[in-house]
């Protein structure tokens, strides 16, 4: 996709980065400007140091890499290189990719990543063949580790049962007052037991609970503990469960799949189609990582209808780390979903063609609010420890009731309380189509098509 100034603006982490990039638009600052004709640009930007910074940019998805120490992403050098290209005033020479570009492409994930087979083949030609004995030993070590972790997790789940029984004995009404300390302490024990997924749920529970009015906290604790108990039980009985539900339980406890393993997983659902980016969310996690979620809605018929791409970056990078996509963009891609009864988390296996910002790619939900809630109930039945679930619904209105806002079915009785007042500008906007996340209690609106145009959560 040709880079445009509008796209560069979206990619920029802030206005300061754009202003700084503008100062680098002098061609004299760039001893090298080149492209390969396959969507990659690179250049060398003379900074204040002796050696220039090396910058690479992927034109298709706006990905960038620079050797400067900036924690902004993309940095001013990356933005300036894109800008020079978009302006068309600087001459880029057509050249073969240098090593630093090849290395970066080799490390990339996603649509523009280099095919993995080629480097492997060339390395295989040079590297000595692996010793079969070493491979057997390594496999045995992996198996021992896996078994040790399984045993450790099961012991941790037994501890969870005892901990829950203690909470029940005392009554859940008393739990919210001491939840922060108790959950933090017990989550550490589950981390030691190598059940990181479950530990994260328990650690994040107090912040979710404290966001609710006091009267609802005990009830919230009951629902959360029910999910923890269900996860523990499902994990113990995973051999008896359907494979996809067992996979859900494994993921909930903390087993992860690498990208390569997921791509090779035969039970992982695949979906080829056109996807509309409907939300980008960033959340700081207790493990000092920032979770970047890109929510997608499928524009053509087919299932799954929604997907979420998740990336994790260090919190130390600041909030300025950019998303690869922004709401309103659409692209054709094949997604591979993590195996699940209710598939949602996915990766882009292959993107076909460019990412477009085209107003004709509009959210057009097929369900009304009641139908969307029925779909949520179905998903909850299939995957009982489901978290926030995407709802896309047509014919709804945002209305106020006192200080709270509600998403109301324009014709039916259903209504969902909104999480905050971000959708206040939609009050009085008439009947709209809306996408958002429903956690069973509150709806977080993210994207809407209205008569006044498209609304995106700020």
């Amino acid at each position, binding site marked *: 996709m040709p880079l445009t100034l509008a796209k560069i*603006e979206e990619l920029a982490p802030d206005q*300061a980065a754009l*202003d700084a990039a503008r*100062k680098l638009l002098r061609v004299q600052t760039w001893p090298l400007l080149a492209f390969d004709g396959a969507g990659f640009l690179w250049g060398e930007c003379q900074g204040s140091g002796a050696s220039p910074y090396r910058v690479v940019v992927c034109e298709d998805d706006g990905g960038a890499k620079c050797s400067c120490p900036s924690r902004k992403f993309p940095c001013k050098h990356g933005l300036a290189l894109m800008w020079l290209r978009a302006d068309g005033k600087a001459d880029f020479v057509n050249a073969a990719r240098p090593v630093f570009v090849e290395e970066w492409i080799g490390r990339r994930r996603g649509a523009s990543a280099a095919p993995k087979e080629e480097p492997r083949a060339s390395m295989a030609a040079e590297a000595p063949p692996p010793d079969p004995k070493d491979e057997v030993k390594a496999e045995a070590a992996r198996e021992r580790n896996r078994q040790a972790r399984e045993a450790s997790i099961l012991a941790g789940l037994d501890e969870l049962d005892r901990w829950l029984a203690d909470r029940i004995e005392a009554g859940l009404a*008393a739990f919210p007052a001491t939840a922060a300390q108790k959950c933090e302490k017990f989550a550490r024990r589950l981390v030691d037991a190598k059940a990181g997924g479950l530990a994260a749920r328990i650690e994040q529970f107090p912040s979710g609970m404290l966001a609710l009015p006091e009267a609802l906290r005990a*009830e919230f604790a009951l629902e959360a*503990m029910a999910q923890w108990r269900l996860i523990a039980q499902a994990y113990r009985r995973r051999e008896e469960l359907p494979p996809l539900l067992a996979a859900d339980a494994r993921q909930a406890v903390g087993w992860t799949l690498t990208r390569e393993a997921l791509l090779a997983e035969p039970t992982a659902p695949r979906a080829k189609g056109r996807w509309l980016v409907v939300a980008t969310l960033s959340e700081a996690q207790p493990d000092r990582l920032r979770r970047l979620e890109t929510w997608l809605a499928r524009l053509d018929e087919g299932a799954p209808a929604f997907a979420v791409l998740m990336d994790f970056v260090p919190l130390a990078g600041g909030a300025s780390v950019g998303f690869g996509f922004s709401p309103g963009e659409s692209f054709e891609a094949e997604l591979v979903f993590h195996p699940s009864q209710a598939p949602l988390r996915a990766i882009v296996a292959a993107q076909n063609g460019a990412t477009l910002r085209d107003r004709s790619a509009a959210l057009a939900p097929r369900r009304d609010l009641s139908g969307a809630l029925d779909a949520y109930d179905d998903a909850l039945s299939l995957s009982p420890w489901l978290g926030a679930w995407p709802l896309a619904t047509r014919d709804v209105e945002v209305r106020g009731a006192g200080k709270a806002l509600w998403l109301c079915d324009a014709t039916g009785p259903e*209504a969902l309380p909104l999480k905050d007042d971000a959708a206040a500008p939609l009050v009085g906007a008439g009947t709209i189509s809306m996408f958002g996340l429903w956690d069973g209690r509150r709806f977080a609106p993210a994207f809407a098509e209205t008569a006044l145009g498209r609304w995106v959560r700020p």
Partner: protein
Amino acid sequence: MTALDPKLLEAAAASLIAGRSRGAPPLDALFGAAAEGRALDALALAGQARRFRRPAPPETFDEADLVEDARAIVSDEARGLMLRLLTGKGADPQEAPARAIAFALEAKRLRPHPFDLPRLEAFVRAHAELLGATVLAWTTRGEEPRPSHFEPDAVDESNWLTVAPFRQAQFIARVRARDPNLARDMVAAAFPSLKADARARLLETLAAGLSEADEPFLESLAGDRAPKVKELAARLLTALPGSEGLQKQIDDFASRIKISKAGIPLRPTALELETPADVPAHFVHLWAAAAMSPFPLDRLAAHFSMSIDEICAAAKDDTPLLLALAVGAMREKRAELLAGLIRQAPLSWHFVVEQAIERNYENFSRRFNWPFFGRPDFLCAPEEVEPMCAALLQPEFWEMAPQPAAFRPLQTMLCGALPESVARKLLEAKFWREMLAKEEPDALTLTALASLTPKALRSQIRDQFSRAAPGYAARALLALDCLDSLDAP
């Protein structure tokens, strides 16, 4: 199935929340014979069952207040540019580009896109009165003062002092319209027991239907302990012809002016203002301008039996007096007189505009939303703008560039861009050429002047920026792009 009986699950949930000491969960009913030790399963079932419940909607929803707004929404292009210019780190809603955008929206009868209002919150709050009914409704949402439960529903003479100050003012305004003297007497009787803000609010209501009968009351306020009440009373007094209070203020001010005489016969040659001893040196200019603000220049000249031109000529060596006279000339829109005074202190033009326009504007716009109440008389009429601007801005005498903040009161006076002839003079001035030639020009000054440049000269200033050090004019160019997009048909 018995295990999923909703009533049983509810009972289990209630028991789990209360604690087992206050009632065990109905395990037998839920699990039958295999109930022993299944409290955790009861927890899972009861908790999970609740997750399928749907929220009960409120009994009634608020009626959406549909605001009638004849203004058109800005174009998509302008939307994007406005968001870039007016949001993000360092975007100040009071800086020159933001004000220029607000005035341009008012002039073009445009309004921001309603979906952008949360992101433009600081901007729309600062300039709500210029941005249309929708924006006004947005900025005042949920803020309307509601009567307390203890306040009476109907306000009358017997209970008006027990209600909130805004309702007191509403009531007095109604009485004033019906019986001006009664309203004044009620306010006068209540004054000693009221706080300064409430006193000022009530005094404002007396501006309607002002007559000579109000003079004794207004004069009595010369000694009010709140400066804003005192100032407001003095302003109302000036609106009364032949007010004795006003004459007293002129006499007081004139008594502080020392006159030196020379020549045959003796003629006044120099005026020197003696400020009170308790006015700090750096406040002398402000004090002089404030002290002279209530009365017209001609009344002062008459006091000395001189013409106003003679007064101005004699004050040339006393800067505070000179500037106070310039503020008076600005207020009375006497361009020729102003030009002569400004020539004595060319870089003090911003002080003059600030005292004559900006202070009034800030008070006025907060209280009255002037686009809806008509143009206030302290602003220049359209035909006065060009001569007044030319009198104020004399860049040929500037030895250095003005501070960027100096343009702010000017922008208020203009309610938009500079007249073309004045802008052309600025863009060709020496200070501007030197600024653009600098290795590190002041970006704020570039942005301020770009925001004031009229449409016809935007291509010229863009051309000048293209020769300036790159980067420093980035925000100025963004402001120009944004203003152009608002001017586009």
